[in-house]
Every structure is written in C-alpha cells, then in structure tokens.
C-alpha cells in the first residue's frame, strides 16, 4: 500500500516539477554554448550570456523554493485540507500516509539536487578529447576505491547522514503543521508557532543530551571508529525524527479535524 501511495505522490511531484527541471536543464545547455561564446566570439554577446546565466541562477532558486513549498503543500493540502477526505478514507494506516509524503519529499529534494548537478555538468563546455582525461580520472578513482574499500562506505554513510538531516527537518515541519491543525482558528499562525517551539525543543534536547554523562561516554566509545561515529550521528538525528513522525501519525489517526 505504501508503494501505491508513493506512486500517487510521485505523480503529483512529476506534474509540478517536470517543467521546472526541464527548464533548468535546457537553460544550462543554452548557457553551455554562451559561456563558450565568451571565449571565442560567437553569435551571442557577452551581455546576453550573462543574462542567461543569471536566468539559470533564478531557475535554480525557483526550483528550491518550489521544492520547499511543494513539501509543505503536499502534506498540508493532501492530508489536512479537503484532499484529506480522499486520503484518510483510503484503506491504509495514517503512518503509511505520512511515510509516503516523507519519502516523496526526500525524493523531490534529491531529484532537485541531482538536476542542479546535471545542469552544472551540462553547462561546462567540454571537448571529446576531455573524455579520455575523464576516463583516466575515473580509473584512478576506481583504483583508489579498490585499495581502500572503506572510502565507498564513508561516502555512503555521509549520504545517509545528509538524508537524516533532511528527514529530521521535514518531520519537524510535518509535526508543526499537524499541531497547528489541532486549533480551530489561525492554523497557519499556530503551525509557525509550533515550528519555532519545536526548534527550541530540539535544541534543548541536544544540549541536554550532550550534558548527559552516559551519552558522552557513548560518544567517546563511538568516536574510536570513524564509521561508528558517523552512525552515532545518524542515530542522534533520526531518533527525534522518529518521535516527530510517530506524533504526526498519532494526531492524524486520533485527532483529525478536517473542518
């Protein structure tokens, strides 16, 4: 059922982002030739090239702003607005609805970052003979990875850490919206206040956790190994996220008020 929900959320994501992603890639491709054109006088002048580069920057900004708005809107409208009449009457558990929105949010951010990197790659002018240099670079990277396989694990762990940060942020947003929804009036204002309150609470949690001697001992033990240190960091991020998500699921299944 989670996959089916995700399919629906991803379809909504695609409808909203396909245009902006293609615009970013298309503009990057155009910039690839105009940047090249600055060095060897081309059809497009330097001013136009600068303008196009600025336009690409604006598309990037719009893309990340739209991503943030999309994450908020998909949760608020989809589960706490009129669309909730459809979603909450589907034969699924509340946690599945929340998990689907969260996965979709993480995938949307990831896709936007991937599009940004791809756009930058497209923008850099390269020649075919550069490819041979690139293949040499990849060969060195692969040889290095073969000699030190733990490096790949580090990269993977660093990615999990980044995703954990994202999950914590999104789950805090979700809980703030769910708490704001418990009020009958001024729900947006209450959600904002809840977000600020949760931020303070989270900071206090980390401050108190650091002051706890058992935690300090555990941190020292984990720090003995770089991998365990990273996984410790991931756990510290995911623990409050799990609490936030559990609270959201509880509110949606026990205190839902779509009026």
């Amino acid at each position, binding site marked *: 059922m989670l996959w089916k929900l995700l399919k629906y959320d991803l379809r909504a994501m695609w409808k909203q982002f396909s245009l902006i992603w293609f615009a970013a890639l298309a503009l990057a491709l155009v910039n690839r030739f105009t940047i090249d054109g600055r060095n060897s006088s081309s059809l497009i002048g330097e001013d136009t090239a600068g303008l196009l580069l600025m336009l690409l920057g604006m598309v990037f900004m719009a893309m990340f702003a739209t991503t943030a708005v999309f994450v908020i809107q998909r949760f608020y409208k989809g589960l706490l607005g009129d669309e909730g009449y459809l979603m909450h009457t589907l*034969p699924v558990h509340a946690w599945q609805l929340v998990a689907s929105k969260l996965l979709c949010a993480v995938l949307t951010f990831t896709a936007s970052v991937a599009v940004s990197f791809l756009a930058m790659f497209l923008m850099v002018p390269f020649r075919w003979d550069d490819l041979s240099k690139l293949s040499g670079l990849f060969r060195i990277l692969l040889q290095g990875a073969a000699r030190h396989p733990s490096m790949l694990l580090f990269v993977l762990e660093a990615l999990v850490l980044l995703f954990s940060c994202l999950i914590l942020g999104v789950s805090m947003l979700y809980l703030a919206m769910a708490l704001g929804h418990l009020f009958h009036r001024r729900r947006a204002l209450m959600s904002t206040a809840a977000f600020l309150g949760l931020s303070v609470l989270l900071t206090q949690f980390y401050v108190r956790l650091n002051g706890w001697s058992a935690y300090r001992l555990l941190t020292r033990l984990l720090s003995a190994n770089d991998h365990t240190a990273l996984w410790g960091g991931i756990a510290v991020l995911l623990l409050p996220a799990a609490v936030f998500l559990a609270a959201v699921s509880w509110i949606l299944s026990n205190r839902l008020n779509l009026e």
Partner: protein
Amino acid sequence: MSDFMIESWGLTKTYGWRTALCGLDLAVGRGRIVGLLGPNGSGKTTLIKLLCGLLRPTSGQLAVNGMPVGPETKAQVSYLPDRMYFANWMRAVDLFDLFRDFYRDFDYNRALEMCRSLGVEPKDRLKAMSKGTKEKVQLVLVMARKAQLYLLDEPIAGVDPAARDFILRTILTNYNEEGTVLISTHLITDIEKVLDEAIFLKEGKVLLHETVDNLREQEGKSLDDLFRELFRTEPTKGEHL
C-alpha cells in the same frame, strides 16, 4: 460476516465542549437504503465521518460489518463527502487509477461507462471542469464500486430539482444491492420514495429509527410531514415599536 452493516453502542463524539453525538445505539442491516434525517447540526455528518474513519469516537463503540473502523472497513466503505476532494493537477482517469489501486471492488470500465452516460470526458483536467461536472466525477468514483456500505453525505444538497433526480437515479441504478446505502439529507421529499428505513437524529440522539413502511402505517403521514412535525421550531416573535 456480521448480521448488521452498522452497529454502535453508546457512541459519543464531542468537539471541545460541544457534544455532536450522545450515546448513540444503532443497528442497521444489510441491503437497505437508509435515510439519515435531521436538521443542520443534528450529528448526521459526524456519524458518517465516524463510519468512514475520518473521526474517532470520544467514547462508545462503532462497528462496520462487525469490525471496528480501520483500514479493513475503509476498504468496504464508499464515501461521498459534502465537498470536493480533488487535487487540481488530476484528471478523472488519474482518480480512477488511484481507486483501482486501492479498492478491489472498483470497476474501472464501469466508471468509464458512467462517465460516458453522464457526459463527462474522463481525460479532461478536473481544474477545467465545472462544479457540476466535478460532482458527477465524485459520484462516479463512489458508485463504480461494489461496496458493502455507501455513505452519501448530502448528495443532493445545493443542486436544482432536475439534478437531484439525476443524482438519485445514478445512485439507484448503480449501487451494490447486497450493500447498505446510508444517505444523509434534510431534503426528504426527494428521497422518500427510495428509502427502506429512516433514522431521525436530533441533537446527537436517535429520535426514531423505523422502516419507512411502518412509519407511514403507524403515523399515517409522509416522511416529509413527520420530519416537519418532529423538527418544527417556532419563529421568535419580533417586538413592534
């Protein structure tokens, strides 16, 4: 499988200090078309929302087909809310896909057929459809299922008399006859002829629950007249200066 489609014992729902349903004891059988009748604020929508799992009871128990309300009962309930629940980016066919994914009893081809007969183009964007057409799409989604329990919240409110007939005809020609249909409304005259049973709600309590034939026989009047008698309120007298 339970003998009753809907059962409740001491069902109570409060919103803050306000009590919407107060100790409701109810048993509704299978294969019935039941009218949930009462004035505004009598608890009709609250009862329907409890049945489809949008709300949780404050106290008491509620069962649909012998099971407490949850994902299993939601799979058997087809719910028509009193508002639009569409996302703007969708087309009717997107919703049909969604329903096919989640409800085993959803008949995709029947939904397309119903669209054709109702003059709805299923590939049009919902954003571009008129309010009436959107209502038709929502009706198609509900009636293209072979559900055990249909919960129709004010399906004929706010539409002209011709449209009311049309909606009722669509419901009557498409519902699963082994299932139960619960229609909430205060427009009694229009639905009286199709009802098997009537539940009169007043201030969150069941005032009367009887078959329509028995009510007509015992009371010697139409449901509409009975409704007017039960819920009559005297207008306040204004002071003339």
